[in-house]
């Protein structure tokens, strides 16, 4: 908990229990209330890949300044059972409040915990006793949390109405609100008003509240994506589920395919006809897509793949976060072919980069990967409204029928200075051609002549160089003259920024290079950054330091980068980064 004087400026609330307890719903309602009270929100899901019966927890962090990830500690902890206490009580802040439904057994507070207030809170008994149904324990818990945080009950009632009125009717709304008030009253008996963590109320200015997956889906819609094919997989399915509602309303189509092989190949078929097409996946789905990924490169078909990383390898941990599929999309599939890999760091960037991805795919006629992670893929963030006036649709060398009719001897894979060839679509007159998965000549017909092979290989690979001026450059954050450099990509954006602030408090000045295009690798910009650093740290969520290895292979200078790695399947906490840097210096 961060306080300025007596005022709280940053707070984290954890709700923990078993999968099936309704933790996600409760947490989301709380997050929405906080957002409506003007707080910046970031939620963190730590769920098992299971529907019922395994421990699960959800952290809602609220701050008066913009935040991009989870914080270091927990200030308020609502545990639906004792198990959660042992695991997480050690992360409680001083003065923290902990409520636990231990039924007939109350776990002793672990000696490590700094929590000040610890109470037994019989959620289940209260729910059954007052409403006859265990399910009401959620709302009782929510009521207690609203009391502790001193939230506006008017806002709470409004949000509960929104959640239940249409789907379940007035009676359900009434009962749920009653349960919230019960929770509030019960908490009041245990915790005095002075002990509470009262939060300031502010105006909710014009902000959004969404996940990275949803931001990608909305970005795709805005970018003119009209064909989407995918196979269900955590944690990427939210992209599809959002588009499944909206694409048909925009004359588009979403297809659920039999597997990821079909998903990517179907999207490639659609893109070949001229539709803006996309698929999304994660983990093993990405492995299956490697085959079609190469086809997109070879046949020069624009395609966008959103890959939301989860903890691998193999089935791994489907609902947990990691950054270990970088190698797969940069080096993956057999053979050499051009690809562009983008890595948004925030929910806002998920939207912006998706628009960019569709334009790059068509301009350079190659696959573009949006590489994100479960952390902000499924986690919700309050975000600035997306600026639709900045959305431009660029279709590259796509020919109109009028242009095509005037071309003498159309060649789909014509050799050009920038490597990009004019594109005709099936159905167009004067544009007949072949799209080949085999090596082919300028007309698209199979050709295994070694000289042709060299020409076509160079043509395709040249597109990367042509694209390099058009890519999203890495961004430097923090004081330019700082001598400690941190390099990271994707969801480490938030924790790194906060780690820099923590280091500054200890007199260490650090800056951060946010890698936003991972391939083609922006060597020059990275070299320039490293040259200004006395020490360079690479922060990433994987075992082998994939970014660090990539960096060393792409940067033409000798330097020693130290890795700060986390492969626990959990997102970095800011202190993990700041303390490791401090120790290393």
């Amino acid at each position: 908990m961060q306080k300025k004087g007596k005022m709280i400026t940053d707070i984290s609330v954890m709700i923990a229990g078993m999968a099936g307890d309704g933790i996600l719903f409760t947490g989301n309602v709380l997050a929405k209330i906080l957002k409506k009270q003007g707080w910046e929100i970031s939620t963190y899901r730590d769920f098992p890949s299971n529907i019922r019966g395994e421990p699960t927890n959800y952290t809602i962090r609220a701050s008066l300044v913009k935040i991009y990830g989870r914080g270091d500690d927990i200030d308020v902890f609502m545990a639906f059972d004792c198990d959660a206490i042992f695991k997480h009580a050690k992360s409680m802040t001083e003065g923290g409040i902990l409520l636990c439904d231990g039924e007939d057994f109350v776990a002793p507070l672990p000696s490590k915990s700094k929590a000040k207030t610890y109470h037994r809170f019989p959620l289940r008994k209260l729910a059954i006793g007052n409403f006859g149904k265990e399910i009401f324990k959620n709302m009782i818990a929510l009521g207690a949390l609203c009391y502790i945080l001193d939230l506006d009950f008017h806002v709470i009632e409004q949000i509960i109405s929104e959640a239940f009125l249409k789907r379940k009717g007035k009676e359900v709304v009434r009962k749920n609100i009653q349960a919230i008030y019960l929770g509030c009253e019960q908490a009041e008996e245990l915790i005095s008003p002075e002990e509470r963590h009262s939060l300031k109320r502010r105006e909710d200015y014009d902000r959004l509240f969404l996940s990275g997956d949803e931001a990608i889906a909305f970005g795709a819609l805005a970018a003119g994506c009209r064909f989407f094919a995918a196979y269900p997989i955590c944690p990427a399915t939210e992209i599809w589920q959002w588009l499944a509602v909206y694409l048909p309303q925009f004359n588009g189509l979403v297809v659920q395919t039999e597997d990821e092989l079909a998903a990517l190949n179907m999207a490639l078929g659609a893109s070949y006809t001229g539709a803006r097409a996309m698929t999304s996946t994660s983990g093993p789905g990405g492995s299956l897509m490697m085959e079609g990924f190469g086809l997109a490169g070879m046949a020069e078909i624009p395609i966008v793949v959103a890959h939301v990383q989860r903890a691998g390898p193999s089935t791994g941990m489907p609902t947990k976060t990691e950054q270990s599929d970088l190698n797969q999309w940069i080096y993956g599939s057999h053979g050499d072919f051009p690809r562009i890999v983008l890595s948004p760091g925030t929910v806002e960037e998920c939207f912006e980069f998706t628009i960019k991805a569709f334009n790059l795919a068509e301009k350079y006629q190659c696959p573009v990967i949006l590489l994100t992670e479960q952390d902000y893929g499924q986690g919700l963030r309050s975000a600035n409204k997306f600026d639709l006036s900045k959305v431009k649709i660029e279709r590259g060398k796509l020919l109109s029928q009028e242009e095509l009719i005037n071309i003498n001897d159309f060649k789909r894979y014509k050799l050009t200075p920038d490597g990009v060839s004019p594109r005709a679509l099936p159905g167009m007159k004067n544009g007949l051609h072949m799209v080949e998965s085999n090596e082919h000549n300028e007309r698209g017909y199979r050709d295994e002549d070694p000289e042709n092979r060299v020409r076509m290989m160079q043509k395709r690979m040249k597109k990367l160089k042509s694209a390099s001026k058009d890519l999203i450059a890495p961004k430097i954050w923090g004081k330019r003259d700082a001598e400690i450099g941190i390099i990271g990509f994707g969801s480490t954006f938030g924790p790194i920024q906060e780690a820099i602030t923590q280091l500054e408090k200890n007199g260490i000045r650090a800056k951060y290079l946010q890698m936003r295009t991972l391939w083609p690798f922006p060597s020059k910009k990275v070299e320039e950054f490293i040259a200004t650093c006395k020490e360079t740290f690479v922060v990433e969520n994987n075992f082998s330091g994939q970014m660090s290895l990539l960096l060393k292979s792409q940067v033409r200078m000798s330097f020693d980068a130290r890795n700060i790695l986390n492969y626990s399947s959990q997102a970095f906490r800011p202190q993990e980064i700041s303390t490791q840097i401090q120790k290393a210096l």
Partner: protein
Amino acid sequence: MRKDKDYHLTDPTWCKGCGNYGIFAAFKKAAAALDLKPEQLVVVTGIGCHGRLNNYFNSYGFHALHGRTLPVASGIKLSNPCLSVVGISGDGDAYSIGLGHFIHSLRRNINITYVVADNRVYALTQGQTSPTSEMGYVSVSTPYGSKELNLNGLQLALASGASFIARGFSGNPTQLSSLIEKGMKHKGFALVEVLSPCVIHNKINTYQWFRKNIYDLDDDSNYNPRDKMKAWKKLSNEKKIPVGLIYVEKRPSYEDLVFGKRAEPIVFNDLKVDAPRLEKIMEKFK
């Protein structure tokens, strides 16, 4: 009216006597009979000797990855239903590496025609056993004889919800062309399996062998291709192989169900950013 030669781009270079010649001739004839503009026709092929076809055929062509003919063809058709889309695969493409797509395409019932050239052997890779090779088949991959039961593609198709099943024979391009034409006219997914001998690698299932073992359902005036149980029975007998129109059923296509009366194909969408409409949707994220 267009003629066969309008679809003839170059002379094929398949082995002399290859069953693919019969398919090539029949397909050109069917396209001519339907008077299709070459630019309105997209031929998607898989990997195998059949896959050379769109090097010789005058239309838009897509030579897909091994086994992925149907997903590509489906994506094309769904984005632009104005196009005529024909997928061509071999038995390896359709019944082995692409089998998942085969079953799901049948139940999806997208309006495409799928020609499966079945030579009962992997020819392009020099003669290995295929899923349709008979049990005991001796080849370079099964020198002691195949120990796996051969796959009955058409029975599988019937069980997977096929709305059109026909079988032709490369040795009879006239009938084959009429079956392909019927398939292309059919509203929904049309499967046309072709018994198509490989003269180099399969010395068992030759033209002669097929002629001896096939019989023509079109000659049987009592056969009703709308009777699913009868079709199942006919397909169960692997000693006597029926050719002709085997099964047909009226069932809404996938496009009918997802697009309804929506007239404009996805590809003709104006992609202009509709900011006011998107703003409204963005409000839902609050």
